[in-house]
């Protein structure tokens, strides 16, 4: 994304903050919406649009789980593995998805075709729907069985990509 596009996005929001540094996070989240992750160019564009140094911008981006500084799949599937979800079968869902997508059980990762990233998530705030899954930043869904979770991934693989990647 270009610095001008980011500036245009930030402009109507600028007056809401006494310090322009507060614009860095909205800028990063927005810059991520074209590629689904933040490339070197995206980070530089955010730096230029907000007036902070690239190294500062990068240090902010690296702090947050949902800002990706490395490429990820077209869809990011977050499987909650925290306590309430564990009690309701999230480990079984996780194992099944990793196996199905040929992804390492310990760390998660991206399928060989680059379409799907499976990652562990900490409590998503949908423990009443445990075990639950969030795709990108869409509303979290659940409860899943290993099979229904696999069906969700198949659907995602077949569906067109979203126009913007809000993650």
């Amino acid at each position, binding site marked *: 994304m270009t610095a001008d596009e980011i500036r245009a996005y930030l402009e109507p929001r600028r007056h809401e903050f006494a310090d322009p540094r507060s614009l860095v*996070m909205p800028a990063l989240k927005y810059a991520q919406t074209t590629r689904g992750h933040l490339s070197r160019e995206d980070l530089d564009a955010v730096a230029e649009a907000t007036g902070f140094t690239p190294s500062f911008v990068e240090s902010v981006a690296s702090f947050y789980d949902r800002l990706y500084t490395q490429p990820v799949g077209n869809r990011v599937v977050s499987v909650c593995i*925290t*306590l*309430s979800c*564990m*009690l309701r079968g999230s480990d079984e869902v996780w194992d099944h998805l990793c196996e199905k997508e040929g992804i390492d059980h310990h760390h998660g990762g991206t399928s060989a075709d680059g379409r799907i990233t499976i990652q562990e998530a900490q409590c998503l705030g*949908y*423990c*009443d729907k445990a075990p639950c899954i969030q795709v990108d930043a*869409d509303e979290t869904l659940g409860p899943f069985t290993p099979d229904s979770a696999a069906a969700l991934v198949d659907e995602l693989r077949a569906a067109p990509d979203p126009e913007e990647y809000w993650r």
Partner: protein
Amino acid sequence: MPIMNNVYRQRAAEKPLVTLDDYRAAGGYTALPKALADVEPDDLQYVFMRSGLRGRGGAGFPMGKKASFLPKDSKKAKYVVCNADESEPGTFKDRDIMAFNPFQLLEGITLAGYAIGAERGYIYIRGEYEHQARVLDDAVRQARAAGLLGEGILKSTLNFDITVYRGAGAYICGEETALLESLEGKRGQPRLKPPFPAVAGLYQSPTLINNVETLAALPPIVENGADWYAALGPEKSPGSKVFSISGHVMRPGNYEIVLGETTLRELIFVHAGGLRPGRRVKAVWVGGSSVPVLGEGHLDTPLDYESIQAAGSALGSGGCIVMDDSGCIVRASLRLATFYRHESCGKCSPCREGTTWLEKLLMRMIAGEARMEDLEMMETLFGRISGKTLCPLAEGAVAPIKSALNMFRDDFVRVVENGSPRPEPMMAGA
């Protein structure tokens, strides 16, 4: 039910109140006009104080008292910050208040802003709640169009507006000073206190920070009076509270109860539909995961701050996680250790390394690779973490695990000897 609070207003209407008209039809936006017409800001703070409302985000600090800590004579801008980071394991109440009753939260924040003399409020919402953030954005637009936010609200002299600010996935940003750092566009790492946010908060200005549920309780309090609220429940824990309940229960969900009137047993067995047939309660983390665990012997504890504390735990966020006797307490403790290890911001080494070690020790135990000395080592580790860190996250990691080791020592010993295979989970439809 004498409550017209939080989620009940939504239930009364039986549909989400996401349009201004629907919120008004359910009795919304009567408190704000009343306050603007009849109540001076200082008196409004006094209303909050007399209601006895305590913070619903975890610590339970009296809301009106916190508002009174903001300096009256400061020339700096003042801010209200609504903590909607809701990332405490087991907690999902703010989610529903925002999705189903967004205007009640906006009205509450506006009342707080008027009371302390602020011109802007921020809702810091966890990035994973993008859906709720959009509901709030839309509600803010509607409220602005109707003159309920912006300049000269309801033709008064009050100028106040609200910004919805999205986080990006970090539990620590729920801690109030980390939240402020994040809202200032930085890495979300806690600040040293003092100064407290009331004096030097957002942009070093006086800032009132409260949880979603706390702020959403203000409109009914102003509408019905502080005495009405104070008369609900016990003297020190008045009012109603939403409990999120999950884990091995038949009907997980959000249930609003009057504090002190319902026991833990009733929450589990009446509201949440109890357990699967033949199962017994093994462990309950009653106030989110950062509190000492309770057992079957505590089920008759009334749900209010004092009673839960007397039972050895804390009401916390009201995120109640239930595990039945099919679960393994060591595995559950490990899962929590992993959570805190993952969410530690890394600023203090007792927290960063302590949580890593806790996780390692517990992993060894469930794999059947531990020795008895590891239990003592874990106890030593608690002492090395407790009280030696910048923020309470580390304490939150110690509390559930230390209490589990005390209460269920036999289980730990057994797991050290034999390991612990993964038990059958309670699956969907079971």
